[in-house]
């Protein structure tokens, strides 16, 4: 008795790559990479990586709840992530305090998400794609939403760049110099919630860390300025997503798996290069 293992090279992969659903996925890859790469740098600099992880999970009940009421998944996801972001932003500043509060809300939200998904069969069906992403099902309407979000994100970042960077690397001095650090925190968390919302559609809530934090951390180790690190993170993100799409068109593997694998490998190589320098 042989295991039913289907793992074979698909000779028609070039046709797959040019199929409309794949073109949508490739464009989504670019739009997600731009958002995740830029916000990823600030997430690492502000030590809010756990918050990024948590926001995706907090979005879960929003996503399954939206299915329950027949609303778009991204709407529910975005609203819950934004609510969670503003709540975490308003919580205590002490990192330990924030981690416990964030982790507790994360676990509760996952539980609620599961409960909602069991209330209807359609939500249960969507559960897998919410948890692990479904980049191959992205529609043109979603792409338009992503593009609008990217434009807004880049404008906000351009306007707030220096104060946001200052408050990220040295909040006390920034505050003394007149940077409204509380406002910067809210702006950052709101942007992060938006980035999470669009990125979850590529890799899902469980794997989001590998797309929003890992590329930024890898680029951080090599690049010699904040801006270059942001560009580096965008490139690593894009390589991961496009690489994932390419490999999954050749072999029967889920794109999410290949995306997080490439991202993790690049991070490991960057870490090795960084530790050699020291």
């Amino acid at each position, binding site marked *: 008795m042989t295991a039913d293992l289907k793992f074979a090279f698909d000779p028609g992969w070039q046709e797959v790559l040019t199929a409309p659903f794949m073109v949508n996925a490739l464009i989504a890859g670019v739009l997600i990479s731009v958002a995740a790469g830029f916000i990823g740098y600030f997430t*690492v*600099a502000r*030590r809010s990586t756990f918050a990024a992880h948590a926001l995706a999970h907090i979005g879960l009940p929003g996503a399954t709840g939206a299915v329950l009421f027949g609303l778009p998944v991204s709407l529910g996801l975005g609203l819950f992530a934004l609510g969670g972001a503003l709540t975490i932003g308003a919580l205590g500043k002490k990192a330990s305090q924030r981690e416990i509060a964030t982790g507790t809300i994360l676990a509760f939200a996952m539980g609620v998400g599961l409960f909602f998904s069991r209330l209807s069969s359609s939500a249960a069906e969507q559960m897998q794609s919410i948890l692990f992403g479904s980049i191959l099902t992205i529609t043109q309407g979603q792409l338009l939403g992503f593009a609008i979000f990217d434009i807004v994100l880049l404008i906000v970042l*351009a*306007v*707030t760049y*220096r*104060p946001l*960077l*200052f408050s*990220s*690397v*040295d909040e*006390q*001095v*920034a*505050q*003394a*110099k*007149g*940077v409204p650090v509380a406002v910067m925190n809210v702006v950052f968390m709101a942007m992060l919630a938006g980035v999470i919302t669009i990125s979850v559609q590529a890799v899902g809530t469980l794997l989001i860390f590998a797309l929003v934090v890992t590329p930024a951390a890898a680029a*951080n*180790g090599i*690049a*010699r*300025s*904040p801006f270059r*690190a942001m560009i580096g993170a965008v490139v690593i993100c894009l390589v991961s997503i496009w690489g994932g799409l390419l490999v999954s068109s050749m072999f029967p593997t889920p794109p999410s798996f290949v995306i997080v694998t490439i991202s993790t490998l690049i991070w490991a190589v960057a870490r090795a290069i960084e530790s050699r320098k*020291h």
Partner: protein
Amino acid sequence: MTTQHPSAATTPATPPTSDDTPIVEFSDASVSRGGHTIWSHGNFSIPKGTVTAIVGTNGAGKTTLLTIELGLLPLSHGHVRVLGKPAGSINDRIGYVPQSYASDIDSNITAEQSVGLGLTGARFGFHRQSAQDKQKISDALGMAGIADKASLRLSEMSGGMRQRVAIAQALVADPDLLLLDEPLANLDLAGQRGLVDVLSQLNSTFGMSIQVVAHDINMLLPILTGAVYLLDGHPHYSPIANVMDSKLLTHLYGTKVEVIKTPQGDMFVRPDQEEEPAGRRQHLHTPKEAASFHAEPKGAAERSASAAGATENPESPESSGRQAH
């Protein structure tokens, strides 16, 4: 860093200019946090061009005093004016080096970029760095003695170097007042001596007013012109000669302290061994023991000891007085 002999550092601060607005002025100032009064009835003013230590026991509200001067925390009662204006309204003329400068930095920002934030970090919108900004940044790095470290990342630097970057960041906007929170705490002897030299130069060359929160004022004594001491829940200001009183310091630190003057005129503060009540655990070390703590880079310890003038002075302040806490 140019090694400056301590006798050069004892040069008094620049004489008061015609503009004699005090650098800070507290009138009946009280501060409380969460309904609990930290200190109250602060009535004092500090002249311009002075180097002031802010001393007091743990939790007396030394850092709070700085946050009040920066206007980051409102007074619960009274008024405070900094450079003649309400606190918080002229922070662009204040350089601030918080205590947490040494905390790990996960950012790949370089020394130069970090100092640049001190100049343009609060600006919203699009800006290109002007040639004038670049000059100011390199001047500030030079003043802090790290001109050659401009392109190093903060994550590649030691705590002492990062502190220099933080000081350069505070200096880049040409402040009139420099506030430093426990700048000596994480430095070795050579680092402390180097920092005191930098502060001495800033004060004597640019007439900059400086306030330093410090646990141990021995290293700063050669350049201090006065001290704010937080005693019994009230801040007081006094010229340094009046602070250097055994009774006052004993009351201030809550442990017997004596002020010692050497024949060379150097002053230092140390716990009084004879008058110490029986049963109190003392953290005193003989000069020999203390020297062994600095045994690792032996050359460096010797260099800083001689720089401190200890060669003429067998019981050097570093070796006995520093263990006071």
